[in-house]
């Protein structure tokens, strides 16, 4: 056997010599290249157990690579954003992480504005903004925990944005949609426009062809009061009982076996985040969270950008990416998370930039009232030639005279 092994190895050695003569290797890096891999000496801020070192200005280059933002439901991403709250800022900073966290979870808010640009995945990307105001002030702790969620009712929702289907989106590749929406006491409508609806028509068949013309100029679907009618499935007030979910719904169909372990870890982290936001975390949980987060954001800093306004930034999530699958890593690795905190006012906004395959960004702002920028005006679309479809009128026509939106609520 030993002789046989020796012969095997000898044969392999001979083959390797032959391989070496026939297979070209990549060129060896030159001394100049090697020098170029290592930028000029600089000081770089990192987090680690080296107390006593003197602070210095950050001059290191941020790691540049395209990533995806993870606000869209991944507990890991949510945890990463919160990680910055627990990371000790620079010694010069007057604002402590605990203050920021406390402010984030306890401050009452009346509304939210979310602005996003180039978010999506390999199939689709979206840019736009959505603004919501609520009937009652709420705290993030309420949203996360669902405590008293019956009171957390969006009063007004405005959305405007564009969606582009990327080449990977198969039959819909190249399709561009402009969408707007308004849901309030005063108006309820949805607007859709598609300059070149060919992919949509191809996908929808003959029915799609019927809508081709109107879609080119835009279609404004006037919902009237229909969303208040319980005759229409899902017709309750939109967004009622909103609860932020940070974990997959465990009551869904059983997940595939190979995903169970991953989901379990995700749920565990989500529960941790939930407890932290709601102020229910035990000291042990906080320590555990800190330990987890120290593996993630490698660079954390706090800058006073204006008197009293502090911006906490966290970048370089490559450590997190080593533990994530490729897709999640793609969301996070080069993303920059920022949270702005104003003394005596609390969190003003939070953002994630340079994230995702399109290097997209999302910015979340707490607002008290809507501005003109938030409100989407239907007149804009009407003046550009949009076709108005009066849905209540159609419902009346179908159901017969006398059927009014919301009529089903009345006892017969």
């Amino acid at each position, binding site marked *: 056997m030993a002789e046989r092994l020796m012969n095997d190895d000898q044969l392999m050695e001979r083959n*390797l010599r032959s*391989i*070496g003569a026939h*297979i070209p290797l990549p060129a060896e890096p030159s001394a100049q290249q090697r020098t170029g*891999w290592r930028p000029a000496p600089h000081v770089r801020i990192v987090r680690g157990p080296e107390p006593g070192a003197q602070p210095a200005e950050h001059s290191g280059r941020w790691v540049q690579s395209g990533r995806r933002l993870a606000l869209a439901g991944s507990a890991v991403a949510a945890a990463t954003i919160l990680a910055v709250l627990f990371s*000790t800022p620079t010694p010069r900073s007057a604002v402590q992480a605990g203050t920021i966290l406390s402010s984030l979870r306890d401050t009452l808010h009346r509304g939210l504005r979310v602005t996003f640009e180039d978010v999506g995945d390999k199939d689709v990307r979206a840019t736009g903004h959505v603004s919501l105001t609520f009937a009652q002030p709420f705290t993030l702790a309420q949203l996360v925990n669902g405590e008293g969620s019956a009171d957390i009712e969006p009063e007004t929702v405005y959305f405007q944005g564009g969606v582009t289907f990327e080449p990977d989106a198969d039959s819909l590749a190249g399709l561009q949609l402009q969408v707007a929406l308004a849901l309030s006491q005063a108006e309820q409508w949805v607007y859709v426009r598609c300059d070149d609806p060919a992919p949509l028509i191809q996908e929808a068949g003959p029915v799609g062809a019927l809508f081709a013309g109107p879609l080119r100029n835009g279609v404004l679907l006037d919902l009237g009061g229909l969303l208040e009618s319980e005759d229409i499935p899902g017709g309750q007030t939109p967004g009622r009982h909103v609860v932020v979910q940070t974990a997959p719904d465990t009551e869904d169909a059983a997940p595939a076996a190979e995903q169970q372990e991953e989901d379990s870890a995700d749920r565990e982290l989500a529960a941790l985040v939930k407890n932290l936001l709601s102020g229910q975390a035990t000291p042990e949980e906080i320590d555990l969270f800190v330990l987890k987060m120290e593996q993630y954001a490698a660079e*954390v800093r706090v800058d006073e950008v204006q008197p009293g306004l502090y911006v906490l930034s966290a970048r370089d999530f*490559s450590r997190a990416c*080593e533990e994530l699958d*490729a897709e999640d890593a793609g969301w996070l690795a080069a993303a920059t998370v920022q949270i702005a905190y104003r003394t005596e006012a609390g969190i003003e906004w939070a953002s994630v930039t340079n994230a995702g395959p399109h290097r997209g960004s999302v910015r979340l702002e707490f607002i008290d009232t809507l501005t003109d920028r938030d409100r989407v005006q239907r007149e804009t679309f009407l003046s550009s030639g949009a076709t108005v479809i009066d849905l209540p009128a159609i419902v009346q026509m179908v159901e017969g005279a006398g059927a009014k939106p919301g009529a089903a609520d009345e006892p017969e």
Partner: protein
Amino acid sequence: MSSAVTSFVVPGSSTAEMTAAAFDRCSAGLYRYLVVRLDGNAHAADDLMQQLWLHAQQLSDTPPGEVEFRLRAIAKNLIRTHWRKQGRRPAQLPLAEPRLAAELARRLVCEELPVAILERKEVRDQLLLALTELPAAEQELIIKHYFHGKPHAELAATLGTSERAIEGRLYRARATLREKLQHWEPT
């Protein structure tokens, strides 16, 4: 609340020097790893090597013996990100084909490989992918001996060791290469 401490790694400190030395030891191997998987694009490989260097500075807590392992994992992610940014991978990019690699591993020790086989792109791809997966030290040894024709004596003199030790290291490097091909599990 947090035990995290903001600190500063200043080049020139012992930790930074150790990390830099660990990076230097494996950088040529990592560069080859990148070039082979970037369709020969040396410019892109240089860019990723810069990013790897920045990552290496974050590994001050990592034992020097594990730095290369960590950097390889990071390099793998950087490559994925690179292709995601590019939109799609080029069709000619080397791809691991475990079945072909295993067959190649078998034939490496059973017969003298005909030159015609070595001229097949898919065979070259499997060999280059496996070779660049090897730890930098083993990669270097195989390349210098079999590709550059350096004799044992010269390698021994360069590395400050005996010829017998070089033979032993080459034996282990061959075994690792064969193992890589036989049980393809890209790191």
